[in-house]
């Protein structure tokens, strides 16, 4: 658990550093995820070491969004007089984007014969 946690944090540190040094438009943790993926591919033993801790963190992933969510409530006023229009744009575009993404995936999977099994 300790070693797995250190490995995860090191990936994040490297990701944060790379994002700044190379001034990439990506956040450090996303680069850290790419690094972690490379390390997992390189060594199945490393994957076995990481697994319990990573699964532990991910089992309550939703919880981690609660503090930011509470912060958002205070800023609801920033929406101002345009609240209804903004909410409509958020809800409408979310529905359309999920639909477009999922249908395109399924269509191209069917066209290219890519099946999930």
């Amino acid at each position: 658990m300790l070693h797995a946690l250190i490995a995860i944090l090191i990936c994040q540190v490297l990701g944060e550093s790379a994002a700044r040094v190379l001034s990439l438009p990506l956040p450090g943790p996303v680069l850290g995820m790419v690094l972690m993926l490379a390390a997992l591919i390189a060594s199945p033993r490393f994957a076995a070491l990481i697994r319990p801790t990573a699964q532990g963190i991910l089992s309550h992933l939703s919880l981690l969004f609660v503090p930011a969510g509470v912060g958002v409530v205070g800023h609801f006023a920033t929406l101002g007089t345009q609240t209804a229009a903004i909410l409509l744009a958020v809800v409408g575009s979310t529905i359309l984007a999920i639909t477009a993404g999922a249908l395109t995936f399924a269509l191209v999977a069917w066209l290219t014969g890519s099946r999930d099994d």
Partner: protein
Amino acid sequence: MTDFAEIWSYLSQGPLLWLTATLTAYALGDACFRLAGRSPLVNPVLIAVAALAVLLHLTATPYSTYFEGAQFVHFLLGPATVALALPLYDSLPRLRRALWPTLAALIAGSFTAALSALAIGAALGVDATVLASLAPKSATAPVAIGIAERIGGSPTLTAVLVILTGITGAIVATPLLNLLRLKDWRARGFAVGLTSHGIGTARALQVHPTAGAFAALGMALNAVATALIAPLSLSLIQQGLQ
């Protein structure tokens, strides 16, 4: 009552109370979610956020005091993003076989997310700052805020829109995708992660491991794609408005 007031003034200033409150509020939300038969309409994040917002309001606690306790939970977002490499790793054989569907869905989904939000916003007459804040809202929060700042949006408003998009996606995804009769867990997960970043990915992980892995992939790829697609979509809509 002096004792109570003393204890309260001690506890309410330190991180312990608000860390405990955050975990308890989430446990409450999660219990409601389970009691409702894991219905997507009962979103644990939304319940926890609402409960804590009411609590902070009733106790007149400023958000900065609350965040001193909640930051320990908030901090874990970074390591959790790194940990998402694990479901991706587990699905690598699947991912290799789904290269073309993944790329096509990324382009279609990312453009739809930005363009439709801008089109609806513009049609309803929202101002330029709001439009620029709407464009990157499907990307994960740090990416979206960075992009919004570059194209003239407001960081605070973008953070609000990102969270709203995440919660909306987590709530509508299952009924919407059932309505579309899509049974491919890869397509379902990818679209949700792409549109609703980490909050959507958290929801997908609850539903199915394959959906969770493809959601993590969708979130990661759309963080990259949005950096290009959001500014492009905004300039397209601005040209249309002139």
